[in-house]
Each structure stands twice: as structure tokens, then as C-alpha cells.
């Protein structure tokens, strides 16, 4: 980490001052590694990777500690829960839910939020006021509570979780994209495009959208972490994907009451969440440094 020279890029601006960017971070190798082996691979290939059936346990093997603790066996490296289910296998299957929920939610909310944000920022006026009001309202919703209400009314399901997260997330995209669009709209290349006769649609698609992609990438990366946290909280409260499907949040809920006698039940799924989200945050930070147009030579 110790470096004699500050790692930074000189940038000649029109006013000629050499500006310095933030020191660029190292390539996030470890975070990417964690993501692949904790989220992506298990999420895609859980049935091939998991040593045991995640749903059915054997009562004889209940409350076994991890392998390095006295009484633990290599059969269940991370131990078992109170009905004898293998923690490791459940974590591997749990990754599926985290991956699926976050990808679907990010995609849906990203598309909706970006489209609305582009329109709000580009057209301005009443449309902008309307969309931004909706954004404010959506950001002000007590999401977890609303999710609980949803679950009470409709019942817990994958769809419920995705709908609830989308309701929260689209607004963040819309807000961010609108802000960027507002500033891009004032730049002269938009005026040039209008002079050249480009339609509104073409301007949004060819001129504004490519200039917000970087921001969207960064935001999406950071939001995946937020979705995983939200999903786990819902599962923890019993408002997520219904049992017996293993999710990281519901595993922690299982372990809560047993924390005194079997700390590993709550510990490992929590660590899985933490490491995944931490990796996503590190990756997002790195992407921000790399991609954010403000820090690059334009």
C-alpha cells in the first residue's frame, strides 16, 4: 500500500490546471474471487456443488458443530442446524435466492428507473415534477413494513420479494439518472444534436444514455448488495421466499434462538451475506473510480 508517489492521473482542463484524481484502487481481485465462489457459482450450480440435500436433514446429525470445533466432522464442514441439515449446503442453495432476486430486481428496477429518469431529466417541466414526486414517495415508503403487509395480503413468494425491492430501487435509478441527464442536457453536444435535427428519442438513446451507462454500472453493482441485504432482512422476518427453501436470512432466523448453544447456525450465513455485500461494495467503488466520467479524461 505504501507508495512514494501518489497514484494519480494529471488532467489538463480547459483552464489548464492540472487536476488530480483519486488514487486509483488496485484491481479488486479478491472481491471478485469471493463473488464468484460465494454467489455466482453456487447460485448457478448449487445442485452439483452442495454435498447434502439442503432441505432434508438427518435428526441423528443435528446441531453438529463445524469441523474445526470439537465434535465436528468433515461430513458437515460448517456444522448442522437443529434438524440436522448441512449448513454449507444450505448456504450454497441460499446463494441461488440471493443471486436470482438481486439480478431480477436490479434488471427490472434499472430499466424502469432509467427510462423514467431519462424522461424526467430530458423533458423537465410537469413530467419531471410528477416523476420526482413519485420518487420521493417511493423513497419514503417504509419498505420492510410494506413488504410485511404485502406478504400478509398476498402471501410470501419470489414475486413478492422482487416487487417490493423494485418498488424501492427504481427510484434510486430514476433519481441518479435524472440528475445526470439534467447536467448532460445543458452540454453543447445536445444542442448540436438538436441543430442537426436529431429526434428526442435519438438524443436520449444516442447522446444521453451512453453517458449515464457508467453511473448505472456503478449504481447497479452497489445496489445488488443492497438487494441482498434487503432480501435477507425480509427472509429473516419470514416475509421472504417461503420455507423450506433455504435463504441466508431465514437461516440466521433459525440460528437466533440457538445462538447460545449453536452459534454456527447464525454465524455462517451472516458471514456469507457480509462477504458478498462487502465484495460488491468494493467492486462498486473500484468501478466508480474507473468509470465515473468526472474522474476520467474527457
Amino acid at each position, binding site marked *: 500500500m505504501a507508495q512514494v*508517489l501518489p497514484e494519480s492521473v494529471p488532467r489538463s482542463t480547459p483552464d*489548464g*490546471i492540472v487536476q488530480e484524481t483519486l488514487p486509483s484502487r488496485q484491481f479488486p481481485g479478491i472481491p471478485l474471487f469471493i463473488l464468484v465462489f460465494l454467489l455466482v457459482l453456487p447460485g448457478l450450480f448449487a445442485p452439483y456443488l452442495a454435498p447434502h440435500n439442503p432441505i432434508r436433514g438427518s435428526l441423528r446429525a443435528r446441531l453438529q458443530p463445524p469441523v474445526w470445533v470439537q465434535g465436528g466432522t468433515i461430513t458437515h464442514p460448517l456444522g448442522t442446524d437443529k434438524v440436522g441439515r448441512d449448513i454449507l449446503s444450505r448456504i450454497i442453495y441460499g446463494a441461488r435466492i440471493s443471486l436470482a432476486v438481486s439480478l431480477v430486481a436490479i434488471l427490472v428496477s434499472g430499466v424502469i428507473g432509467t427510462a423514467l429518469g431519462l424522461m424526467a431529466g430530458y423533458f423537465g417541466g410537469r413530467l419531471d415534477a410528477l416523476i420526482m414526486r413519485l420518487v420521493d414517495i417511493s423513497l419514503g415508503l417504509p419498505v420492510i413494513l410494506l413488504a410485511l403487509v404485502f406478504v400478509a395480503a398476498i402471501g410470501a413468494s419470489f414475486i413478492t420479494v422482487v416487487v417490493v425491492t423494485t418498488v424501492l430501487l427504481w427510484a434510486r435509478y430514476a433519481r441518479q439518472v435524472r440528475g445526470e441527464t439534467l447536467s448532460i442536457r445543458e452540454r453543447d453536444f445536445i444542442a448540436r444534436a438538436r441543430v442537426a435535427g436529431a429526434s428526442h428519442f435519438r438524443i436520449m438513446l444516442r447522446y444521453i444514455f451512453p453517458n449515464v451507462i457508467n453511473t448505472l454500472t456503478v449504481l447497479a453493482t452497489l445496489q445488488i448488495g443492497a438487494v441482498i441485504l434487503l432480501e435477507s432482512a425480509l427472509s429473516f422476518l419470514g416475509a421472504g421466499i417461503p420455507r423450506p427453501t433455504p435463504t441466508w436470512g431465514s437461516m440466521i432466523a433459525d440460528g437466533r434462538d440457538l445462538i447460545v448453544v449453536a452459534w454456527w447456525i447464525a454465524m455462517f450465513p451472516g458471514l456469507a451475506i457480509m462477504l458478498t455485500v462487502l465484495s460488491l461494495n468494493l467492486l462498486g467503488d473500484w468501478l466508480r473510480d474507473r468509470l465515473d466520467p468526472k474522474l476520467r479524461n474527457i
Partner: protein
Amino acid sequence: MTRHIGDVILQVDDLHTYCFTRWGVVKAVDGVSFALRQGETLGIVGESGCGKSMTALSLLRLVPRPVARIVQGRVLLQGENLLDKSEREMRHIRGRRLSMILQDPQTSLNPVFTIGNQLLEAIHIHHKGSPRTLLSRAINALSQVRVAAPERRVEDYPHQMSGGMKQRVVGAIALSCEPHVIIADEPTTSLDVTIQAQYLRLLREIQEETGLSIIFITHDFGIVAKMCDRVMVMYAGRVVESGPVRDIFNHPAHPYTQALLQSVPTMEERPERLYAIEGQPPALWELPPGCRFTARCPYAEARCEQTYPSSFAVGVDHTADCWRLQEA
């Protein structure tokens, strides 16, 4: 002009300020020397990135750290080397003996405090006194820069003022503790022409009243012609020519100065064609060993590429760094 020009008040010897970046060492200021006399106006002219602003910040020891560092040189203000001072001592010098007017009035005032607050703060650092006397000093400073109804203006926030008015306030802050030397870093570039004329006249009047020395940083030879006694032309971190303003305009010696003067259209006549300097200034992190203007110079020879020319005298107090002058 009825100004009295006195002894040397500020002398800069062989100043080097480098920026240490990933792309290499940016030699923003690379061996700058000059002297400023009391009551005199010295112009520093150059294009963006030539090091003129970095020179100014180096004098105040306010270069952006940790990236930039003053690596060598002396800055003698009334005989004391500022580069030897502690940060604490520097704070007593800034504003009180050496001050600066920044370029952009829109951003150089803090939007959340009243201008009275910001002005009083400047005065309070260097003067003790009852709130009442300090306030009257602040009001005086505002009237010195011809702000109408200064008693009421002290209550205003920056956003309630026009650009020209804000720049006057910035001037009042810089002048409020009666500094001996003031650095004006392109103070009029963002102002309209008629407002610029007001501001330039104001600076000249204040100089006549107080005997202030001014370093005027600009990219515009017109401002030099109007305001300065002596001028120093910078290119890529070095001073390529310096001398009395009339000498420079009448007999520019360095090819860069010559080209700059010819490339600017004037009010007085319309040339058939403007002289255009081809190419652009070199990147400061990959400077050639020789003269930095070589690539754009119509007279470039082999030796220009290899060794940086020494300074040659071309008149009284008038020097230029160009090999062509060696023979003359």
C-alpha cells in the same frame, strides 16, 4: 501615471514547483526568477498550463498538497525567505503582507456566510479590536472597492450579488489588511467588458492610493498593455522573456512572444491574415530537454532541441531565452 516605483519588495529566485503524478513529474514551475518593486505592476502572461497560476500559489505556499511540492528556490518578501517560514508564520503573512484575488468571483466566496462575515474574518485574523472597530474597517474596505451602501451590503449573501460586485468583495477581502503585494489571478476573465473596465480602473486607483505592488496574471496581452509596467512571458513552466512592457511590445525577442503578439486580432486594424502558431504546448510530464517551444518555432535549429537556451539580454532589464539571440 503618477505612481512612484520604489525598491524591490518581492524577489523570486529559481523557483521550482513540481507535481508528482502517476504519469511522471509535472514540472509546473521550472526555474522561475523575477523581482517586483514597490508600487509596480508585473504581468505574468501565458497560456493555460504554462505554470503562471502555480507560480502564484507557490508564492503563498498554497500549492495543492500532497501532489504538488515546491522543490527548490527562494521567495524573498522584503528580504525574508517565505519558503523557510513555518506554516504558522505563513498564516500571518498571507492576507496581511501578501494577498491574492482569485479568478472566479462566482465560486470564490463561501455561499453560506454573509459577505460581512467573510470580510470580518479576514480582518479579525490580523487585527485586534472591538467588534465595532472591526466592522467599520470592513465597511471601509467595501467602500474602498466602491461598493455602494456598504453598511447594508455586509448583511448580504454572495448569491444576492452580481458577478462584478462579488469580484469587488473578493478584492475588498484581499485588500482589507493592506497587503504590500497582491497577486491578481485573471480577476476579470469572467467579467463583461464594461465591468472589466470598471474593475481595472479600480485596481489602478487603489494602487495609486496605497502604493501597492501587483502581480497580474493573465493570458491577455491587452490587459498587460493597459495595466502593467513590466511583463514576464511564461511557456511550459519557464519564463521565456521578461522586460519593460513597451520594450516587449515594440521589440519582442522570443519567437513565442512575437507569435503571440501577432496572433491576436486588435481593435486598431484588420490584418489580411492572422499569424497562427501551429501545434500546441507540450505535455508538462514529457518535456523535451531543449527549448520547449522548439516544436512550434519557425526558427528552430538542432541546438534548440538539445539544450535549453540561457537568458540573453536584449535591452535594459529585458531578457529572453532563445539561442538566436546569442549572436546579436
